[in-house]
């Protein structure tokens, strides 16, 4: 008899959650369902219509993050000026109350961006399945949890059944080996991967990140890396849990305690890829060859090193890509062949589920300390949660940012997606630590350049895109 081939981390999490098979699809049990105000109203409306209960309200956690203003949160939802946003937030409040779901409301110190809150509270744990009506749910894969975004119909399905109907994805391993140069971190790794495989390169796969450079990342860095996996088209990103993971989790409010911790730890340690497991695709990047990266266009795959020039449409192979490049150059107000460092910025945004955790703020503050924001720039820092904000204030980071001329705001999705008052005005250019540089993403006709927190901090000081290595 031929021995069974080894399993990947993804295979193991998948196998542990298959309830049954029906019509060739797996019914996958969901351990944690995170919800927010934007992608749930129609799901609850559907439940009401069908008179269906929520199967496991205790495995569901709600936050308000996409629509919330990043000031005056203590005044409560009633004070939110935008009428539609207020209605959506109030609808969530009513739904969580009617169905008995735990909720961290706007203004609660535990509230914040859903993908910051879950890990911070210790809700996100290795070996889990986690879903949320938000594509950046891939973030939670940093803990070795299978985590991905779903649509609203699927949110309703999970609320009603605590399961999701799924077909299995393929296995893709991305190895990042070696030591990065100073000024390069997880955001650059992620952009390098997207640049290498393209925004559809991961379609149909779950990506596991491995290699010495990934192992060396903090949990914050791993979350940044997994967060951007969706921008490579993959369903989810994974990093196998290790001592870094366990140390992060220990003592968090929802992490197991005492004997339960020991039991959980031995369960979690089983979640790693077997040495003889097969991957459908595998690539390896050398961390030392990755420069600080920025995007020039309107897709996250439009990545160049900060020392590079803006590419020309002729550099692309397919007619669609050439047409997209022509359009992107026009939209971004850039000329082919221009050094990207010539791009003057009007706005700097440090925040979002990609880069709003304590380590991101510490790194940016280090660049900013003792310097001043360029007078032509509006610069803002939006911590990912009330707890991140409080910790940063304990460390004095707020004072560093404020002294330099940054705004220090209250938590939320903020300028990442312009569903709240924080927007990039038309025609203005933004150095942003967020995840999408799509047309109109940060505000109608706003121009986004994605980069790391330290690169964004340096751009705020210089007033244009610049190489952070000159600021270290």
């Amino acid at each position, binding site marked *: 008899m031929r021995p069974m081939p080894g399993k990947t981390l993804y295979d193991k999490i998948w196998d542990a959650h298959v*309830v*049954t098979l*029906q*019509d*060739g*699809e797996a*019914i996958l*049990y969901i351990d944690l369902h995170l919800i927010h105000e934007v*992608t749930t109203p*129609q799901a609850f*409306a559907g439940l009401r219509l*069908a008179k269906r209960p929520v*199967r496991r309200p205790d*495995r569901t956690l709600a936050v308000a993050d*996409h629509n919330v203003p990043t000031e005056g949160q203590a005044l409560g939802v009633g004070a939110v000026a935008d009428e*539609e946003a207020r*209605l*959506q937030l109030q609808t969530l409040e009513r739904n969580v109350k009617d169905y008995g779901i735990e909720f961290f409301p706007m203004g609660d110190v535990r509230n914040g961006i859903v993908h910051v809150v879950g890990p911070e509270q210790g809700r996100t744990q290795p070996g889990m399945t986690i879903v949320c*009506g*938000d*594509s950046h749910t891939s973030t939670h894969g940093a803990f070795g949890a299978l985590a991905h975004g*779903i*649509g*609203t*119909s*699927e949110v309703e399905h999970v609320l*009603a*059944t*605590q*399961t999701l*109907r799924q077909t299995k994805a393929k296995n893709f391993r991305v190895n990042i080996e070696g030591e990065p140069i100073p000024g390069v971190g997880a955001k650059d790794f992620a952009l390098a991967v997207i640049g290498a495989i*393209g*925004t*559809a390169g991961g*379609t*149909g796969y779950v990506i596991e990140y491995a290699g010495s450079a990934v192992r060396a990342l903090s949990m914050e860095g791993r979350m940044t890396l997994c967060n951007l996996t969706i921008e490579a*088209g993959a369903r989810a990103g994974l990093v196998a849990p290790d001592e870094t993971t366990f140390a992060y989790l220990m003592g968090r409010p*929802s992490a197991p305690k005492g004997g*339960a*911790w020991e*039991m*959980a730890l031995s*369960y979690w340690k089983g979640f790693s890829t077997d040495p003889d497991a097969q991957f459908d695709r595998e690539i390896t990047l050398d961390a030392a060859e990755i420069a600080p990266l920025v995007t020039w266009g309107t*897709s996250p795959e439009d990545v160049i090193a900060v020392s590079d020039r803006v590419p020309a449409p002729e550099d692309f192979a*397919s007619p*669609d*890509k050439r*047409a*997209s490049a022509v*359009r992107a150059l026009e939209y971004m107000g850039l000329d082919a062949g221009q050094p990207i460092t010539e791009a003057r910025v009007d706005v700097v945004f440090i925040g979002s589920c990609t880069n709003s955790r304590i380590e991101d703020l510490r790194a940016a503050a280090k660049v900013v300390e003792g310097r001043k924001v360029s007078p032509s720039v509006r610069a803002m820092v939006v911590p990912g949660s009330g707890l991140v904000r409080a910790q940063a204030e304990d460390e004095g980071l707020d004072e560093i940012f404020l002294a330099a001329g940054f705004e220090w705001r209250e938590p939320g999705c903020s300028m990442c*997606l312009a*569903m709240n008052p924080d927007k990039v005005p*038309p025609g203005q250019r933004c150095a942003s630590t967020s995840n*999408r540089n*799509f*047309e*109109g*993403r940060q505000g*109608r*006709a706003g121009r986004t350049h994605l980069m790391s927190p330290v690169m964004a901090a340096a751009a705020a000081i210089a007033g244009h895109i610049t190489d952070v290595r000159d600021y270290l």
Partner: protein
Amino acid sequence: MDAFTRLDAKIAPLPLANIDTDQIIPKQFLKTVEREGLAKGLFYDLRFDGEGKERPGFVLNRPEYKGAGVLVAGDNFGCGSSREHAPWALMDFGIRCVVSTSFADIFYNNCFQNGLLPVVLPAEQVQALMEEAKGGNHLVTVDLEAQTVLSPAGETFHFEIDPVRKEKMLKGLDAIGETLQMAADIDTYEMRRALDRPWLEDA
């Protein structure tokens, strides 16, 4: 969910790669608590200028494409945000089928929850359809049962689709109702899980 069987409709070309869900339905339309009425926001920044006036050159504003039921677009259609408002807006506008070389995963799933048929064809066939869609005759027939697209010039392109998804779309089945038939299996799984991973029960 609406069933999808066969569609005779105009096909409109959108020759761009990576059309993301922010472009399909921008954020200002996501604040609704309803599923209906999203047609007004479909491709908003492509259809309308900064003053809210129609851009006459945009394909869906051109009279010859009025009432189009099929879109043919570049690679990686529907990438980005998970917003199901994207298929809702397309459906509300009257689009029942999108043809591309590839779709982003979440958008692809969302289509099947709503009876919007995503058709994947090889690049040269998508390119051929794109060129024909730009011409004077742009009527196509999409037949899900036969898994074919009949092009304006009369060429038949066969497409692949997961048989389970095909069956559900042909019948317009309700996924939740189906899964709830397996409630006893979910109960059993939960009991086993409570024994194996008790720490998850007292969060």
